[in-house]
């Protein structure tokens, strides 16, 4: 059966859906049916800079970047800084982290292998930095073959060990934003997908082989063609009965006959998925990016855009999707478009606002592990230390790889990017890390000989007020308010010892809500 997810007809559409839209047009669409006065005003420069920096390069601005931006009188300085951030290599690295996590969170850890995603991360960073289009990146990932070490794009297929069921489900979830795996055993309970839809998709991977290889970090994994075989859907009534061979077919009805080699199948799948008239591909990407930037997706969770799922601002989603297709899936352009809107630049809405209102502006998000680590580096000068590798011995054959400081933060603040913001875990380990971690606490040392960033700030700023101001810049990327300055100065007076008081201040600032939040 052919199942189509209808793209909801938009009440307002940019004049020509094949033409890219402007940020102003996008704002107009968002405002449709709302009063501008219902919405929050646009944020001041310092808040915008922190927000845009966290979203584009995964860290807050440095004090010198802050000053440069604040001092600029250029009327288009926000657009200019967006362009500047998109040109930094940290842009690719940051979004590579996001996609690495999106993929790796659902890869079951294999026996005796500590999968390393560093190569995939590096490869993705290059693709994003060179602004390779999303359809090309997707085709590269889905059709990759050979050794992960030599072709990191093969990580997705390889680390799933060529498992057709898993690859079918994950391809649908990550690249099409739909959940088909429920249909593995029965027709989807809440959607119109049938069991066959899932198995026909999995059949594209029927001959995909992924062998982990001997290297314990997984980078020796090889993706190749199994050479024979078809995908059989098990008999739901009788597991011992012979299954049914499935034609590799996408839910749009297009596919391949049986008997084709692995590469022909995966190339066909990759092409079908990335065709401009594929109803999910562009929509899924746009939904994820919107969710990450604005705090809430058109659909939540972002990988579950089922036909009967709630959607907010459908006409905006439609227009953005059309725009993304019209630009040839231009990754950087989409960021530029969204970040330039007033919607992105609005102040946070009151908690408890209506869904549409929330979706029409930016809502707060907690920082993910990598971003938090990089924020700690800016705030305290935290070094990234990797302990020496423990060599395998005859007695202890499988020592886990050592954890760098970044790994420790990423582990404590690990969050599956596909889950909605409110389902991201908030744990005591996270609080304990920021409160007590010894590596971090070593940076909270004001004594002149310690060589810490804090000690340098204190020697460069003998005035307490300016030292406090500098600390706020470094930790929260903004100047303190009058009231905050008063609180800080009163604290310094009360404690008496300057060093002790500033250690308290730095500790307290990294343990505020604001530090761990994109707002």
């Amino acid at each position: 059966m052919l199942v189509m997810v209808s793209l909801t007809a938009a009440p307002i559409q940019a004049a020509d859906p094949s033409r890219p839209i402007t940020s102003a047009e996008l704002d107009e669409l968002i405002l449709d049916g709302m009063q501008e006065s219902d919405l929050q005003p646009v944020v001041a420069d310092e808040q915008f800079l922190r927000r845009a920096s966290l979203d584009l390069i995964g860290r807050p601005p440095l004090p010198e970047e802050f000053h440069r931006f604040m001092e600029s009188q250029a009327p288009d300085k926000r657009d200019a800084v967006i362009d500047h951030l998109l040109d930094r290599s940290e842009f690719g690295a940051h979004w590579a982290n996001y996609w690495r996590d999106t993929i790796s969170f659902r890869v079951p850890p294999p026996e005796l292998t500590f999968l390393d995603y560093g190569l995939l991360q590096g490869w993705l960073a290059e693709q994003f930095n060179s602004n390779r289009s999303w359809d090309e990146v997707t085709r590269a990932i889905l059709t990759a073959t050979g050794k992960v070490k030599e072709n990191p794009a093969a990580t997705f297929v390889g680390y799933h060990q060529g498992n057709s069921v898993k690859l079918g489900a994950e391809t649908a979830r990550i690249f099409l934003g739909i959940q088909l795996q429920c249909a593995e055993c029965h027709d989807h309970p809440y959607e119109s997908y049938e069991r066959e839809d899932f198995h026909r998709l999995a059949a594209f991977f029927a001959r995909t082989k992924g062998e982990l290889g001997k290297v314990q970090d997984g980078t020796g994994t090889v993706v190749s063609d199994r050479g024979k075989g078809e995908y059989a859907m098990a008999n739901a009534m009788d597991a011992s009965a012979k299954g049914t061979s499935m034609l590799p077919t996408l839910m749009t009805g297009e596919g391949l006959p049986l008997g084709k080699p692995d590469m022909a199948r995966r190339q066909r799948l990759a092409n079908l998925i990335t065709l401009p008239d594929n109803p999910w591909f562009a929509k899924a990407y746009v939904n994820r990016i919107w969710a990450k930037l604005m705090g809430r997706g058109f659909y939540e969770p972002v990988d579950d855009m089922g036909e009967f799922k709630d959607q907010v601002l459908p006409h905006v989603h439609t227009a953005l999707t059309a725009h993304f297709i019209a630009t040839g899936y231009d990754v950087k352009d989409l960021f530029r478009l969204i970040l330039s809107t007033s919607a992105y630049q609005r102040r946070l809405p009151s908690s408890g606002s209506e869904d549409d209102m929330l979706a029409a502006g930016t809502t707060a998000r907690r920082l993910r592990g990598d971003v938090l680590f990089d924020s700690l580096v800016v705030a305290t000068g935290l070094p990234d230390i990797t302990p020496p590798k423990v060599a395998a011995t005859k007695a202890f054959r499988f020592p886990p790889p050592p954890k760098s400081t970044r790994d420790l933060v990423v582990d404590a603040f690990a969050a599956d990017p596909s889950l909605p913001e409110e389902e991201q875990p908030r744990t005591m380990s996270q609080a304990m890390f920021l409160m007590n971690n010894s590596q971090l606490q070593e940076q909270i040392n004001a004594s002149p000989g310690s060589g810490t960033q804090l000690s340098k700030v204190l020697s460069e700023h003998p005035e307490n007020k300016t030292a406090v101001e500098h600390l706020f810049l470094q930790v929260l990327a903004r100047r303190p308010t009058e009231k905050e300055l008063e609180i800080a100065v009163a604290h310094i007076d009360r404690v008496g010892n300057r060093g002790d008081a500033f250690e308290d201040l730095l500790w307290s600032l990294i343990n505020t809500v604001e530090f761990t939040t994109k707002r």
Partner: protein
Amino acid sequence: MESRNDMHVPMIDVGMTRSGVVSRRGMLKQLAAGAAAAGAATLGWRDLMMARADELRARGKSMILLWMDGGPSQYESFNPKIGSKYQGPAKAISTKLPGIEFAEYWPRTAQSLDKIALIRSMTSNESVHDRAIALVRTGYPPSVSIRYPTFGSVVARDRFDPHLDLPSFVRIGKPRIATRDVDAGVLGAKYASFNINHPGSLPSNVRPTVDEKTLRRRLNLASTFDGEFQSAATKDLVQEKRDLYARTEQFVLSPRLGVFDLEDEPQQIRDEYGQTEFGQGCLLARRLVEQGVSFIEVISTGGRNDAGWDTHNNGFRDNPPLCRETDQAYPALLHDLERRGLLEDTLVVWMGEFGRTPKIKPDGGRDHYAKGWLTAFSGAGVRGGQVIGATDKDGLDVRDRPVEVQDLFVTFCHVLGLDTHDEYIAANERPIKLVEGGTLIRELFS
């Protein structure tokens, strides 16, 4: 991933604190709806207590899982087959139970069989480590699509209380091979185990690096700044952070953290458990039970290599020390719990992921075998001094009363007062029952 408490519908939800004290307010709140519906609004506090005494007792129970990582041999432990060609050099010794014999490496456990109900007829379909561990630690067959949680996390979720200053699920010792570990899975970090890699020392980041006065001064200052940050837009964020930090502060400054420090335990008691990682881990488990921790897992690997109980090679050499270490600690734990009146509220389970093959290699190694493996139950209403099920004279097959892994989980739930039909919600809105299938092992309680 579960996130909302309202998805969690327990059979009863009485506010029992970790130290076993029932919070009256929690209980009354819970009872209000039910009591009104039953027209029993006139029942007094005492009546209500009486009415639910059984459930309350069940809710206060703890579980200690002694995990024999790698799969212990039944021939070299609690089901020797003297006279069979498959029995190695291990001789049999008599036990407290007439007619029941253990391998010679277990003299102390043999004399404690009156406190143990031994199951000799475990069966499963999984005889590869990662798959068997997934099954035996979660109660669900291995799955590539759902990461089922280990049972300790299921218990932690059931017993979650934001006001407690100790974790409800503690794991002591490290699994011998990290990639086979089974964690909180779809239940997420909130219900993950609190890991003590070496008994006697706390994990990093728990102990503050500054004195209590300084820490509180800093927390106050952070809270003042949070107050400044708070607005209509951020009040939920600030509240959430305050709750989390209040719990964390209570934990890291808790005088009860001393429970993890074994130094204040009398030398004689420490020696009773044996001066080994596993022995001291069992001692720590007892201390945690005393403090009301709900689920404790102590991992036995022998520590000399990462083979643990996985004695494919050199079984004749490696089994005696592995057994001796456990034979010291396991009965010591049972006696100590009993002496302190804790055994009646603590379920102690000894098991691994499977057993070993009848066929012996020349050096005494045995491969994996999932028929006729062993589990042992004590405490929490279990009638000790009995053997359930049997294998044939060579130990090739189960001859009597096969017990499956799901039966174990139904039984754990029964003892701990968890409703097996209770469901948690995994990603994709898919409800998962605590246990699927299985029947209670009634003999344990008869």
